């Protein structure tokens, strides 16, 4: 089904996006209220929560341009050395900007 990108159609699209996103924000909590959290489930979720970020980042690192890769590398190294997210993120972005000037 295609929605025309005009007037109420646009509002319907944005509202749909909002409802789907809200369902993901509430869904995890709602489901957990029926499923008891065993040690195994906790371990699964803990491993999963870090893995989501890794899964999101892996293709960015592999398919990104050299600017993207150097940005991630800079952030990783800075984070390991300084253990502070703000300088790590800032230096990563600066590294990408510098790389892309060449």
């Amino acid at each position, binding site marked *: 089904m295609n929605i025309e990108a005009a007037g109420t159609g646009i509002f319907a699209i*944005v509202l749909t996006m909002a409802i789907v996103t809200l369902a993901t*924000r509430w869904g995890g909590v709602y489901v957990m209220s029926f499923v008891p959290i065993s040690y195994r489930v906790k371990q699964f979720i803990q491993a999963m929560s870090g893995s989501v970020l890794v899964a999101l980042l892996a293709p960015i690192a592999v398919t990104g341009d050299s600017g993207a890769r150097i940005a991630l590398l800079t952030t990783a190294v800075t984070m390991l050395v300084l253990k502070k997210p703000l300088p790590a993120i800032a230096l990563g972005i600066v590294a990408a900007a510098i790389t892309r000037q060449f």
Partner: protein
Amino acid sequence: MACADTELHHLDKPLIWSGFKQLAPISIFVIVFGAAFGLAATQAGLSSSTTVVMSTLVFAGAAQFAALDLWGTHIPLFTMMMTVFAINARHLLMGATLYPWLRHLSPAKRYGVMLVASDANWAMSMQAFSRGKPGLGLLFGGGLALWFFWVVGTWLGVYFGSAVSNPESLGLDMVMGCFLLSMVIGGEKNLRMLIIWTVAATASLLAFRYLPANSHIMVGAVAGGVAGTVWGAQNDEH
């Protein structure tokens, strides 16, 4: 700290305000990222009001950027829904990981707090819990900060975005990636996590290559979760 487990779910105004303030410095980047979105949305043909309303109601950067790819004179509703769901499925995990503390709250508070759940404030609150400190103030107060600055940033991007003509040359497209990476590395680091991350990354890349678009996030997450269950169980037996 003699903080019992039952006190960690505590949530009051000072804690929410403290969470807001703790996430405020990160919000500088949220403004920049929001501005990048506002600019990209304008270029994709969204009106300024649509863009700001989207940031206000959806409040999910990656999903909103992905939605711009699908924008045209006609928008495929089902594809849009699945894309937004796939990218935001990690919220399901956030809710699940937060449940041990959220369950002590009334349903209204529990779901109210989750309205503003996103990567940064979730990670900060989980970090607080793992150190034995109350984390729900960070989740809600921090979430309000992120949401507020995300909308402000979007608005700035829409109205003054012409100043940043090429956000990629300034590295601004890497804000999200660098942020998420700093969260990964800031977390628990040991051999078990390294194995889990490797499994997650490998599964994600395979899915990215061979499975439908955006499925790689859930595939990698589930693979990493399974790896964590297997590895953790082995540790228990010894």
